[in-house]
């Protein structure tokens, strides 16, 4: 049952990632915590372990289509490695309840941002005067 549930979480995340352009992590972490009773840190570590191979596949597809700007990707990657290590160490240094609350705030901000972007994309005229 758990096996099936985890595959379904992946299915939903994969479908949403492809159609809404959101990353899987924003779905994996709350799903593992809320539905599968994972501790916050293990949910985040597991999410990252799924993101690595998923992004490799996506990167190959985009690279073949010629959409990757390699010079910029290199700079982002160098910054990303340093930032990723610092961020992960910071997460591991935080107590689970604190990290969980921070994540909850991050989750809501991300969802609101995504909703406003999707609404803009589906309306030809801007809703707000720029």
């Amino acid at each position, binding site marked *: 049952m758990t096996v099936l549930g985890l595959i379904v979480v992946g299915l939903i995340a994969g479908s949403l990632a492809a159609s809404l352009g959101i990353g899987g992590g924003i779905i994996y972490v709350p799903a593992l915590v809320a539905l599968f009773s994972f501790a916050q840190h293990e949910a985040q570590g597991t999410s990252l372990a799924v993101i690595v191979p998923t992004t490799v596949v996506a990167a190959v597809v985009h690279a073949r289509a010629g959409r990757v700007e*390699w010079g910029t990707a290199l700079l982002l*990657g160098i910054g990303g490695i340093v930032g990723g290590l610092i961020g992960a160490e910071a997460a591991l240094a935080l107590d689970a309840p604190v990290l969980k609350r921070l994540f909850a705030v991050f989750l809501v901000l991300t969802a609101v941002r995504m909703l406003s972007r999707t609404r803009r994309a589906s309306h030809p005229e801007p809703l707000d005067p720029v």
Partner: protein
Amino acid sequence: MRHIVQGTAIGLAAGFIGGLFGVGGGVVMVPGLVLLLGMDQHRAHATSVTAIVAASSAAVIPFAVDGEVAWDTAGLILIGSIVGAYFGARLIGRIPAVWLARAFLTITVIAAVRMAVSA
């Protein structure tokens, strides 16, 4: 030069958020590339995903060292997400994006409240 500093800074910020919250970091990287470097949305997405391979590979190491990765769970989710990316996107593509986003927002707020309350 400015491009080099900005690109590295966006990577640093995105990597930090990605490592801190166990997400990719695209949520920071894509808008950073569009707003600061003037990249179009498609190129920004493709370039961001490529850079996140490096950022998430680095971020997973400290978690793995601390034993905070459930590898069997990761494998099962991975199977689902690859199938979902191929077939789910076609089915879900028939639903207007704004309704998907609204549904996602609703579920997200419920999950966030549950997480905050149980913390």
